[in-house]
Structures are given as structure tokens and as C-alpha cells.
């Protein structure tokens, strides 16, 4: 069951341009979290900003009771969060949402990350590695400096394919193009995608074409984070009927073939 609690900041540092890593002491959340879930974070102690910010659970260490976030500074909320110091308290709600569906142990899986979309996928790959899956991570970024988590993925024995827009590291181009040309879909039991919408939509199209299963993690502006306010509607097609689902409670992870992109 989700909790609301004040978590102590254990560490916070910049890992890439505008991108911060934060470690928080939150055993009650770390214990329950599964990959793909998120926490809803109060970024300040005042009413500015008023709303919490949804951030994926980037990694957990259950023995240490530690939870990590990886976030990009976009606006006011993330800016304030990045300024927190070790020892400060950050109010969290979580774990929230429906995470990724795990494959059979030992499966061959693909993980596609675009930009900050890598954040939840590290936790996912942690679990997949525990399950002895054969993992290939397709990691897209703007440029070499912005490539995130490649070292972490490699440490977990995942094969890492990097694509940068400017070609400053790895393949030049985007992850979707790379996957479109090089993937052997028949040998992939499951594909997990998190990144900018066009990238997720692109990979979802490849998956649909190959008729293989995959999951995407959607983003929508959130109010409550718990399914109560219906702010975070995403269009999901189920048995041919399109209905609004709640990214926060029914997702953020959805089967790629069910998402109605617009």
C-alpha cells in the first residue's frame, strides 16, 4: 500500500547537463516498489509549487531502505528539488501506479530508453538481471554528454547500444531508427520503452508491425497521483473500445498495442 512520508536526502548530485541523481532514505517505499512505479514528490515546503511532481523510481536498495531518483530540471518543481541538500527532508507518496510486466526468467528482452526515459529502466533492468534475462538496452540521447546510465546498464550485464542525435557517441540517429533496422523481433520476448512520446510511438509502431508484445510508460500532467482526479487521462483501446485510463493508477505502464497515440 502506498505511503506518504518524509524521506531524508542521503545524496544528491548532477550526473549530466540539467540531470540530477538523488538518493532518499525511504524503506517503506523501497520495500514495496516494483519497476515502472513512481513516487509523487513535494518539491518545496511552501505552496509554491502547489502540486507534487511524479518521478519514476530509478533504483531501490531494499536492504538499505534506499530509493533513488534521476530527474531532469525542467521547471520550478524540479529546480527546487535539485537544490535540496543531504539531510533535508522530501515528502514522498508512493509507490504509485502499475509497473512493468516481468517476463519469464531467462527471457531475451529489449529495453529502449530515450533521454531521461532511462530513469525507470535502471530499476527494471535490475530486476530483469536478477531474473537472468538476456537484456539489450537501446539508449538514445542528444549527445555524448547526455547519455544516461550506460555504465549502470553495463554493470548489470546488459548489452548496451547507444545512439546519439549528433553521433558524438555510438550510432548517429535515434533509437527508433536503429531498432527499426537492426532488431530481430522474433528472438525478443518482450520490449520495454520509456522516452519522449514520438520515440515511444515509433517503437510501438515497430512492435505492432512485428506483432510482438511491449510496454510503454506514459506521461501526463498529474494532480492527485492516486486515481482520484482524472487529470491524467490517456486513451487506451481495449477490445476495440477506446476509453480514458488514468496514467497514475491504471498506468503509467501500458501495453504498447493498447495506446491510442494522437
Amino acid at each position, binding site marked *: 500500500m502506498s505511503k506518504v512520508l518524509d524521506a531524508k536526502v542521503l545524496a544528491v548530485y548532477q550526473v549530466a547537463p540539467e540531470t540530477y541523481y538523488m538518493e532518499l532514505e525511504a524503506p517503506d517505499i523501497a520495500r514495496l516498489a516494483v519497476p515502472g512505479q513512481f513516487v509523487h514528490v513535494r518539491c518545496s515546503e511552501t505552496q509554491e509549487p*502547489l502540486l507534487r511532481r511524479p518521478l519514476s523510481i530509478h533504483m531501490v536498495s531494499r536492504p538499505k531502505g534506499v530509493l533513488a531518483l534521476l530527474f531532469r530540471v525542467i521547471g520550478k518543481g524540479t529546480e527546487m528539488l535539485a537544490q535540496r541538500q543531504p539531510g533535508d527532508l522530501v515528502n514522498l507518496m508512493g509507490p504509485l501506479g502499475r509497473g512493468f510486466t516481468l517476463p519469464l526468467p531467462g527471457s531475451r528482452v529489449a529495453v529502449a530508453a530515450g533521454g531521461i526515459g532511462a530513469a525507470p529502466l535502471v530499476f527494471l533492468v535490475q530486476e530483469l538481471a536478477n531474473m537472468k534475462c538476456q537484456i539489450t538496452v537501446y539508449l538514445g540521447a542528444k549527445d555524448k554528454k547526455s547519455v544516461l546510465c550506460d555504465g549502470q546498464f553495463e554493470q548489470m550485464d546488459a548489452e548496451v547500444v547507444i545512439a546519439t542525435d549528433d553521433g558524438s557517441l555510438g550510432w548517429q540517429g535515434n533509437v527508433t531508427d536503429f531498432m527499426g533496422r537492426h532488431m530481430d523481433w522474433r528472438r525478443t520476448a518482450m520490449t520495454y520503452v520509456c522516452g519522449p512520446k514520438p520515440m515511444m510511438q515509433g517503437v510501438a509502431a515497430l512492435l505492432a508491425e512485428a506483432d510482438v508484445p511491449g510496454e510503454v510508460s506514459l506521461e501526463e500532467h498529474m494532480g492527485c497521483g492516486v486515481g482520484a482526479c482524472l*487529470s491524467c*487521462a490517456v486513451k487506451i483501446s481495449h477490445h476495440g473500445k477506446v476509453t*480514458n485510463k488514468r496514467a497514475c493508477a491504471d498506468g503509467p505502464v501500458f501495453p504498447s498495442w493498447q495506446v491510442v497515440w494522437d
Partner: protein
Amino acid sequence: MKPNLQVHIGSMLMANPVTTASGTFGFGPEYAPYVNIDQLGAITVKGTTLEPREGNPTPRLVETPAGILNSIGLQNPGADYLIEHYAPYFRELKTNVIVNIAGNTVEEYAQLAAKLDPVQGIAALEVNISCPNVKKGGMAFGSDPAAAAEVTQAVKNATSKPVIVKLSPNVSDIAAIAREVAGAGADALSVINTLLGMAIDIRQKKPLLGNIVGGLSGPAVKPVAIRAVWQVYQAVSIPIIGMGGIMAAEDALEFILAGATAVAVGTASFTNPRATLEVLEGIERYLMANGIADINQLVGAAQP
């Protein structure tokens, strides 16, 4: 000694004056991990219509200074679903459940009220004539005194449950609407629904909300809401459920002193999922600190 917190909203007895604002608390279970719902005086659930509705396009939520704009557009699973799936849960609760209802026509309001009338587990109906997020009905009823009275009367005739009419602040004279609605038989008034607002994305040069306009709620609107409660209290003698920007007990007490018998916590639950209960605890502490034996003594106490 513990002060008395019981209040009456029409024939509905609330163990304490705190409920939730419709649309911000789902149907209740969503917040169960954070608050014991039975400790609240009531919960007011999401706006319900006769037929299911899919609501407005996204984005449906934009943050603004000390507030939020929403344009959910009354997405809801419809009355039948509510009766089948939620009413059993409502019956298990010890607290009151207030169902917020909306329609496109007077007949729809009446039909909906009639349909919910026999349903056990529903303590009262809150008639939303003030939703800024739907094309037909909604606010149109709330800004015309005659139409507001007509809806009120139709709902009253269709149900024996207490009828609470929810007023819009987007009017020239809220007291006039309140008088008409009270005259038409409303048992209580909810004051206020959201303020009509919008926000623009200066990069994309277009409105930020999918629906262009939305309803403003949160601390930003509190001064408008307090003023509305103050004016309505002077205009009518039926009880008022005050809401609009209540984040803490101090805010709730402002509403009560202005004339609200009960209060609803809305947007605050997004910031702090325990806000409802913390408001309640704070009210109780204030009563004790000030030696006030009964919350009802405080209702309208700031009025001349």
C-alpha cells in the same frame, strides 16, 4: 473536554464538519491508503451523470500561481455503474456519502435524482449547476437564477434525500442565486465551485488546456470563496458547505466564521493526501484552545 463537532446539513447529520470536494477525492478508496475515510464527516464523490462520459481532451490540468486549472469535463462512469459498483462500498462506510450530480437538461437532473433516490448508502445529493467544464448545462444553470431554481425544484421533487445545490462564483450576484435556490427548496448550498480561467503556452502560442478554459481552484481562490460564503450567509438561512482553497484548519475556520456549517477540502488533497484529516484535527484543536464547546457556535461568528 472534547468539543461537539456534529453539524447538520439538512436532515443529514455529520459527525464533524469536514467533507471532500467533489472531483478531488474520487469515490473514496483512492485515498484510503492515507486517511481513514470514516473519520470524516462525509465524503463527496465525483460528479455523476446519467450516462457515462469520457470528459475533455488532455492536458486537463495546469498549475497556476497558488492554484490549478482543471478541465476534466465530468468524466465519470455513469449512474448505473455508480449504483452497481460503488454503492455497496458506500454502504460499508460509517460516514456519509454525498453524490454530486450533473445533467444537460432539467429532466436529466430530475431523472438522475430519481434514480439515486432509492439507493442506500447515499446520504445526500449535491447538485452541480456550476461546472465550468461542460458545454451544455453546468454553469449555464448556475448563472441564471430562474434556471437554478428550476433545477433545484425538479431535483427536490425527485428525491427524499437532502439536496445540496452547488453554486458558481462566476456570477454578478451570488446572493441572488442563493435566494432563488433556497426558495426552490434546497436543503443546503455548496459554495463555491471553480472560477472560470485559462492559461496560455507562450512557446506553442496556444491554450495550455485541451479544453481551452478550465476551472480555477486552490488557495488562489480562497478570498473569492470566503466572500461568496459571507454574502450567501447573509442572503439565506439554510446551511452552507464552504470550499475553495482550504489547505489547513486555519482556512476552514475562516469559512466557518464567515458562515459555513461544514467545509470541503479539495485541491489540498493533491498537495497533501492527509489534508482532510489534518484540517479536522486542527479545527478540533482550535475549539479546545479557545474554549468553544460546540462548533455550531462558530458558524457565522465573524458576521456583524
